[in-house]
């Protein structure tokens, strides 16, 4: 099938639009504050339209195949190519990236956190969006790695400049942790390159992910090689997810980051790690995957319970939400560790649902902080439903979605993840996975516990007198605009999960087939 010009360039245009916007922003004088913010909104809106157009033009019958492909030579000396494309697995994450990007830009229209410097703030956000989106559509290992690392520098500055009190510590910790993991991943990629397939004509090695996947899934790598390299690559992904015990950067980074930084961190950036497992680590190194799966499952089960217990102990509202991410990503990783279609489907659904719900929670926490100027739960002191009924209502709605109430987006992913660990892939130890399932099940109860307790302490009760006298404005128009899409999705994904599951199914089937043969 011949592809039209649009099909060849759609992904490139959409992905790099934010960077183009960032460059334009740099040339706007900084006194033109409104114009800079406007440019941010316009650029992300255009990019979002591009992503929607790709989603509409996508052939869902062939969702297991790569579409909108552009594959040209980039660094001929080492054989790295500019190879981008999109399939059913990438699609939801790609669209979600631009959706959250747009919503963050809209949110920025009203509010740039201190110390201002709107120009740098908008430019860095745009750069960040390109990096995140690129990760999901890169099909060359070097290109993937470049996009992967591209997010580090902007996020470092977003946290370090616009974060709250402890921002400097949080930002460098975030940077060092993720860099540490990812450089080992890079060494792993190089090992794949040199041990991987060669071009039959030129005899050159390749970084092309499709070729390496075919080679690896076909048993091209030796067992020992797979064990070592899976370890190196998984380290990079595991830090990003973050899997327990590599998670300690996350509470600091999420808590200190400005609102939209937290939204993008939780909403998209964590998914880069889980996506990496699904897209690269599993199919390329199937024997490694089978060998490591029980360990990943165990760490995931620990993460679920650990995060829930940690959440119960938090006094800071934002830190609580941050820790809840560790638990939710635990469910995602548990699904992946089962190496089944249901499990990986659950994982991808969980990624999207978590992006929508936790992104929304961070928006809410940001807005609550805007009004109270504190994040301490005890200082807020309850009674939000009295002071800001709409805000409190939405807060309750999203928190309940996050704890996994059936009918809302959070439920499907967690339920399917537990379901899949009841009957993991045949090569894995069923008893062990059922233990994980039980542990995860206990985790869901604890999760419900801390979310409800949080709602009780924030929403219910008598509002402290000082807040009553102070008085708050309930949800503003700009907040409605940036939140409504997420609220709608929370409901929609809960009722019609098939929009995600049907899109990803073919791709996931293929990966499971590649892993288990």
């Amino acid at each position, binding site marked *: 099938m011949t592809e039209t010009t649009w099909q060849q360039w759609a992904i490139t245009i959409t992905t790099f639009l934010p960077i183009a916007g960032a460059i334009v922003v740099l040339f706007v004088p900084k006194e033109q504050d409104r114009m800079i913010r406007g440019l941010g909104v316009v650029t992300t809106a255009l990019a979002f339209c591009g992503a929607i157009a790709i989603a509409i033009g996508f052939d869902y019958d062939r969702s297991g195949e790569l579409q909108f492909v552009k594959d040209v030579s*980039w*660094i*001929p*000396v*080492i054989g790295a190519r500019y190879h981008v494309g999109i399939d059913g697995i990438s699609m939801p994450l790609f669209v979600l990236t631009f959706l959250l990007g747009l919503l963050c830009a809209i949110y920025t229209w009203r509010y740039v956190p201190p110390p201002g410097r709107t120009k740098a703030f908008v430019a860095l956000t745009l*750069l960040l969006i390109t990096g995140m989106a690129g990760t999901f559509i890169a099909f060359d290992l*070097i290109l993937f*790695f*470049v996009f992967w*690392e*591209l997010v*580090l*520098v902007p996020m*470092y*500055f977003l946290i*370090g*400049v616009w974060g709250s009190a402890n*921002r*400097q510590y949080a930002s*460098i910790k975030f*940077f*060092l942790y993720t*860099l*540490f993991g990812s*450089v*080992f991943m*890079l*060494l792993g990629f*190089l*090992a794949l*390159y*040199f041990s991987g397939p060669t071009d039959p004509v030129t005899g050159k090695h390749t970084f092309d992910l499709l070729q390496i996947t075919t080679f690896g899934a076909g048993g091209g790598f030796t067992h020992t090689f797979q064990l070592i390299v899976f370890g190196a690559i998984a380290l990079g992904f595991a830090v990003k997810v973050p899997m327990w015990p590599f998670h300690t950067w996350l509470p600091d980074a999420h808590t200190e980051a400005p609102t939209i930084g937290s939204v993008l961190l939780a909403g998209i950036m964590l998914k880069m790690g889980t996506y990496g497992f699904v897209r690269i680590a599993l199919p390329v190194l199937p024997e490694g995957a089978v060998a490591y799966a029980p360990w990943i499952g165990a760490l995931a089960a620990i993460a679920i319970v650990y995060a829930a217990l940690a959440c119960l102990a938090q006094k800071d509202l934002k830190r609580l939400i941050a820790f809840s991410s560790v638990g939710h990503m635990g469910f995602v990783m548990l699904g992946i560790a089962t190496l089944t279609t249901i499990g990986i489907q659950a994982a991808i659904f969980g990624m999207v649902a978590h992006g929508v719900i936790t992104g929304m929670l961070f928006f809410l926490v940001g807005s609550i902080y805007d009004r109270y100027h504190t994040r301490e739960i005890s200082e807020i002191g309850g009674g939000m439903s009295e002071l800001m009924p709409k805000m409190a209502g939405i807060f309750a709605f999203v928190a309940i979605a996050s704890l996994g109430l059936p009918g809302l987006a959070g439920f499907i992913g967690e339920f399917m993840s537990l379901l899949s660990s009841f009957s993991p892939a045949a090569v894995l130890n069923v008893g062990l996975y059922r233990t994980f399932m039980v542990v995860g099940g206990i985790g869901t109860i604890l999760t419900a516990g801390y979310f409800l307790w949080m709602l009780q302490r924030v929403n219910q009760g008598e509002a402290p007198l000082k807040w009553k006298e102070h008085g708050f404005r309930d949800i503003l128009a700009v907040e409605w605009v940036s939140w409504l899409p997420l609220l709608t999705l929370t409901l929609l994904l809960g009722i019609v999960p098939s929009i995600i599951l049907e899109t990803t199914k073919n791709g996931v089937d293929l990966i499971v087939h590649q892993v288990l043969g």
Partner: protein
Amino acid sequence: MPIDHHALLPVEIVSATILLVLVVDLFLPARAKEASMWVGLVGILAALGAVVSLIGGGERTVFGGAYVVDAFTLIFQGFFLATAVAVLLISYRYLRDGGFYQGEYYFLLLTSFLGCVLMPASRNLLMLFLALELVSAPGFLMAAFRKSDIKGNEGGLKFFIIGVLSTAVMLYGMSLIYGLTSSLELHAIANGLSTLQGPHETLAKVAILFVVVGFAFKVSAVPFQFWAPDTYEGAPVPVAAFLGVASSAAGFAGLLQLMFVAFVGQASFWAPIFAVLSVLTMTLGNLVALRQRQTVRLLAYSGIAQSGYILLPFALVSADAAVNQRAFQATVSYILIYAVMNIGAFAVATAVAERRPSLQIEDFAGLARISPLLAIAMTAFMVSLAGVPPTGGFWGKLAIFAVAIERGGVGPWLAAVMVVNSVISVAYYFSIPRAMIFDEADEDEARVATPALIGVVAGLALLAVVAIFILPNAIYRLGELSALAFG
């Protein structure tokens, strides 16, 4: 045999410029001494033109094989001359406003660069020695150019003593090699060494070590590194830039020819030594850099660490010619990329030194507001030195990682050490952007205009760092071309 003057043209033009600068200075009035810079600049640009004119002309040999013009030579000569342009430009205001002897300075600087330009073309021990000394000797004087500053004197003296000592050892090693192989020419030495046996072979190994010492000093590898921080700090900032960029690159250019051509047959003996040198150099450089509060000292330790990275491909040399070629290629690519970001960092440091001569890291506070362009550029250079996208430094590291993994054996372990070191380095490289962007200056300072010439250098280096990131193939191709020359 007639001498091929076209092949020698770059060297001849630089030599003529040196003499011209010396003479012109005599006739310049005291208030216009800085005009020497422009004379030097024109000469260097002319030499650059001569290098360009040699491109595509095939290999040329002069002086019976002692001086060879091939792709390696041209790439490095072009690189050194471009560096010379940058160092001249950032020297201009610093020297003029600092009350230095300007004519003498430009004379010495250009003489050092003459050594640099000779180095890559030198394919015999005597020429290599001459080139190395030509780089070093004026350097001793320039390092102590801040006469009234006790640190400058100390740094210069240290540099001189260690330099002379290591040169003496190297010369002794060279004489041993000449005695063993009765040749000074690199290929002939390789042949001669391969036939040695018994005690002569042992003696050859000792001689190789002695020769390496001279170059290890030049590139500030452990344990010959400790002059670097004191010397850099004491020297005028542009001189530190010269030492950090050109002088160490010249050392590597010579070392590449020696190890990959003359001594390659003995690699199984010296490659493990280089592995140890490389690991120690990068680790020590990075760990000590963590504690530095003075920018130029920090850059000196960063330079030591970077030398450790560049030494890594030497440790990968083996009997496998294809991998050797790739190691060579990675080294050249790394040196080129490293130089761009390093010269940029020194350019920004020179600009800041005008306002805050002490150059503590705190002196960068608030630079993002005071001179946004300098701050953006410096941030890019630091990110690049750390080897993180979106900057060119990443591709330099990647080239070394790649060849290390390809080599197998000890390679992946060395790569792992380098990876850990790279992560550590982020902690100190980021201290400067942190000061510039996160902190505010003590007193409220108005925006300061960047000196135009430094702005040009920093701007070009910034463009280059970003351009290399987007299109790394050009640099890799240069590495490949230079490696083809010796293969």
